[in-house]
């Protein structure tokens, strides 16, 4: 497990937790619990294309996703925050988020094991 990662980073958690593994493990668990829900909601929205619902979800995931510095998330969130309709750029952004979320899910699960061992 690395503090710095290409797809995400725990640097912020380390900074505010005084490197408490219990706290970091708790925060990763909480994020993973929400992540499954985010993936399911975003997948549904790629079909319904409801921009208001999308913005609500983005509002919810924004603090954790930004704090974990999830790759490319900052730009997609800014785009969705500013837009008023579901266009191709939004569609591409959501798909990019989904792709990243699905990739990091098993990686973070693995990180949890690392913290569990400490």
């Amino acid at each position, binding site marked *: 497990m690395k503090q710095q990662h290409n797809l995400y980073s725990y640097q*912020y958690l380390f900074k*505010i*937790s*005084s490197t408490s593994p219990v*706290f970091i493990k*708790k*925060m990763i668990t*909480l*994020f993973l*619990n*929400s992540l499954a829900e985010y993936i399911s909601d975003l997948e549904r929205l790629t079909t319904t294309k409801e921009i208001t619902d999308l913005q*609500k979800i983005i*509002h*919810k995931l*924004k*603090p*954790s996703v*930004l*704090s974990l510095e999830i790759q490319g998330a900052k730009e997609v969130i800014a785009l969705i925050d500013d837009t008023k309709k579901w266009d191709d750029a939004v569609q591409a952004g959501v798909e990019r988020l989904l792709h990243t979320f699905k990739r990091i899910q098993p990686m973070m699960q693995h990180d949890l094991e690392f913290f569990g061992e400490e």
Partner: protein
Amino acid sequence: MLDFKIFIVEDDKWYGGLLHHYLSQNPDYEVTLIESGKECLAQLHRKPDLVTIDFGLPDMNGEELFKKIRQALPNIPVIIISAQEKITTAVDLLKMGVEDYLVKAENTQQLLWNAIIRLREKQSLKNEISELKAELKTKYDYSRSIIGNSPALQAVFRLIDKAAGSLINVSVSGETGTGKELVAKAVHYNSNRSSQPFVAVNMAAIPKELVESELFGYEKGAFTGAQNRKSGRFEEANGGTLFLDEIGEMDLNIQSKLLRVLQEKELTRLGGTSKIKLDFRLVVATHKNMAEEVKKGNFREDLYYRIVGLPITLPPLRERKEDILLLTQHFLAGYSKENGVAEIKISPASREKLLSYSYPGNIRELKSVVELAAVMSENNLIEPDDITFLSGNTNDVNAVLNSELTLREYTRLIIRNYLKRYDDNVLLVAEKLDIGKSTIYKMLQTGEIEGA
């Protein structure tokens, strides 16, 4: 230190957990994470010291929850933490009374930490102010702050009581050092305006050319050097009491402006155009005989009748000799407390000496005499030699009588003393001493006596 209870209302478990962990690092904070607006309202009986609310809660938005908290616990500070950065929302909420509005960002927890520190400092200052106000009220409880049992002073107490119970203007007169400001404060701090400001202005202490701007305030650019708008003393006293000391020194031009303010209960700042409504009680004080000043044309008659309100005349100390020893004991107790020394007593001969003096500087002079005697005393006992009268022995009746002067010299001494007391008003002095005015003029012309 007592625990500071913080409710974090946040439906995002991740973010809530982050704030909870961060704030819990302070052992003085008891932090509770709450996931909905309804649950927060149900927990309010625990009386939190601070509530932080996520603006976008699923069951009610931050504004709605804030209003409900305000209804239940009007004094609990609320901080809104929101992912949205709309300035209008933030401004609206702050106008409604929200303590702070923070946007969810990387450093939010640090901003929140600082906001809580500021909040606690503010609360601590508020508590301190309340305590000081309570202390002030006690301090100006006139039965404790104005010392004396003489019938003359008891009559003053009754008048203070009457003044405090109404909104009437009050005019306090009395020689220098008789405690005019103390009476003004006693009226204010025993009235129902005691929590409002008490603003004291000494008219004799403000340069003539600054009086108007000091009293009325000014707008930016009203005159050279007016770089910012400034409220005047009238405005500062709004809701409370304005004490104008030495009102007899007020320039005639300012008198007419003061009259207009008192009649219209509003003013316009220098260089301004808009009228500012005013509501204050006026207490004025002077050592001069105002009726005389009106007769002489130095004071406007219409203003005199407007400000005279309830007149309170403070007797000079020489007319309430029975209070001298009581006051002496009071000053000695204060001296011992302030200097951390044992109780200081007065010998019987010293008592006699203190009682024999006329104290032209009144209580202020007695206080200085007593404190000096306390410093000079040995073995915590004041002996006559420790007592020095500050305005010289010429005013000490016994000392004067024992000085074996000629009748002419005594006459000169008495006339000089009266002229000093009555601001060189020869006619008044002649009337008081029941002698011809030409006697005094002649002595002045020949240089036998000099004016004050």
